[in-house]
């Protein structure tokens, strides 16, 4: 009798274990579902980077910097048969962190690569065009800045009438300095979008005793747009 009881209790023991496990899982889910739903939004934000689980070590914080070879021959040096430009042309939009232009000004012997986007890493490498301004070739305000102790050290030497040329892989854009400007770093009026085509260059005011809140720069008006390729025709 006792042996029979022992044998018959084996499935009971098994079923009891499974029943208890299911019960505990169900109760745990029941208890945690409400707090989890509340925390889910925060968890999704805090641990949102599930597709890029790279431990940061380079200090670039996920930024991909791309260098490009951009030729900068003076227009006069280009052979006549190749001097075929278009006033409206195809614009190649750069990716964030990509070098997409070279800024040259012979009047102050300036030649600096221009990156799309503005971060401290990119400012180490050249001038940066804020991605809230328009791409060269589009209508509006092109805003470029750089450090005063490196690439834009001579920017304050620019005077109205100086010529600035920006070379890209899709065209050459020439501007003329029209106005010198000074503004506070909190004043956004010069970096806001404009209807007229203009180029705004600025840097920090040189000040060795710490950083300055003042910005100094120039506003340039568009002289010419020279695209290498015509704009793609769209079907009506």
């Amino acid at each position, binding site marked *: 009798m006792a*042996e029979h009881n022992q044998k018959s209790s084996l499935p009971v023991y098994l079923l009891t274990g499974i029943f208890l496990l299911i019960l505990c899982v169900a109760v745990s889910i029941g208890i945690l579902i409400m707090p989890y739903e509340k925390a889910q939004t925060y968890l999704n934000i805090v*641990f949102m980077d599930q597709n890029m689980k790279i*431990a940061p070590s380079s200090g670039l*914080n996920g930024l991909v910097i791309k260098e490009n070879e951009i030729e900068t021959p003076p227009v006069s040096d280009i052979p006549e048969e190749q001097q075929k430009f278009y006033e409206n042309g195809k614009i190649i939009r750069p990716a964030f962190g990509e070098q997409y232009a070279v800024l040259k000004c012979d009047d102050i012997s300036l030649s600096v690569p221009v990156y799309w986007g503005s971060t401290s890493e990119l*400012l180490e490498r050249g001038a940066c065009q804020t991605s809230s301004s328009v791409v060269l070739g589009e209508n509006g305000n092109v805003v470029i800045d750089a450090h005063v102790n490196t690439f834009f050290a001579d920017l304050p030497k620019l005077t109205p009438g100086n010529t600035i040329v920006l070379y890209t892989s899709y065209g050459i854009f020439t501007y003329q300095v029209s106005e010198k400007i000074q503004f506070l770093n909190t004043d956004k009026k010069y970096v806001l979008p404009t209807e007229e085509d203009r180029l705004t260059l600025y840097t920090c005011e040189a*000040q060795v*005793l710490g950083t300055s809140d003042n910005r100094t720069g120039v506003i340039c008006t568009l002289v010419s747009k020279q695209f290498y390729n015509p704009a793609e025709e769209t079907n009506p």
Partner: protein
Amino acid sequence: MTKIKYYFPKILLTFLLIFLLIGTELSLLAHQSFLTYKAFETVTVQQHLDEKAYTAVENYFKSRANSTGIPAEVYLNAITQENMKQGILSSVSEAFDYLHHDVKTYAFTMDFTALEASVTEFFNQYAEENGYQKDEVFQQKVQANIQEAEAKILYIADTFKFGTVAEHGWLTKLRQFLDIFKKIMTVLCISTGVILILLLLCCKENFSELFYWLGLTGIISGLLISVPCLYLLGTDYFSGFVVKDAQIFSAVVGYLQYMTHQISTAFLITGITGIIFLILFGIIQKAKRDILPRL
């Protein structure tokens, strides 16, 4: 009906024991392991936080040199990796001092004597070389520069972000919680003991059955906690942390992984203990079966 009467109290007690064991074990782990200064110190060493923090300081002052003209060496010669390690550990010890009511407010600082001397020397030298008047404005600028540099270094050294936690009042809330945490832990330990005694009393007619119920408790509580923990570790979930500053990322992710690893290890041991209890129960049952026919 008899079987239900026989099993129900034991099932109920085991059910309660499972959750009480989870609570007790987690609270003991928190108290002894991951809510301690030692845990943060381990993460600091394991994740090389001092090295990462120093690199961040280095990058910051090198980048700043482009806009201020002050060479990065003025700051970097006065700050070492060891200073950063002391700073990180100091931010942790200050936080624990505050949590344990040893200090009234959370205020974390570092020794900046060398930095202040270095910056002052640079400015004085600059002023002398360039004929700059050392007037009140000059002194204010020197002080402003020192304060700015110190604030940045403190910000970087606070890798576990206790400063931010304190700013938002969460450190005070944590302190209030820790005040009642020990009481909760005591209640949990006593409750677990009481349930164990009750289970023992229920099994007094068939003492070997206690191994079965304890085995179930161990296995189920082990599964309930270690499975989600192993999922988090296996999928590397914490590495999806959105803040990508090397020192903060390593500190936060390193600590969360350390904590999850501790919990999963403890509950895997609990689960294995449960399996051992079940095996013991099986051996005893088999022995009884073998002995009974001879009686």
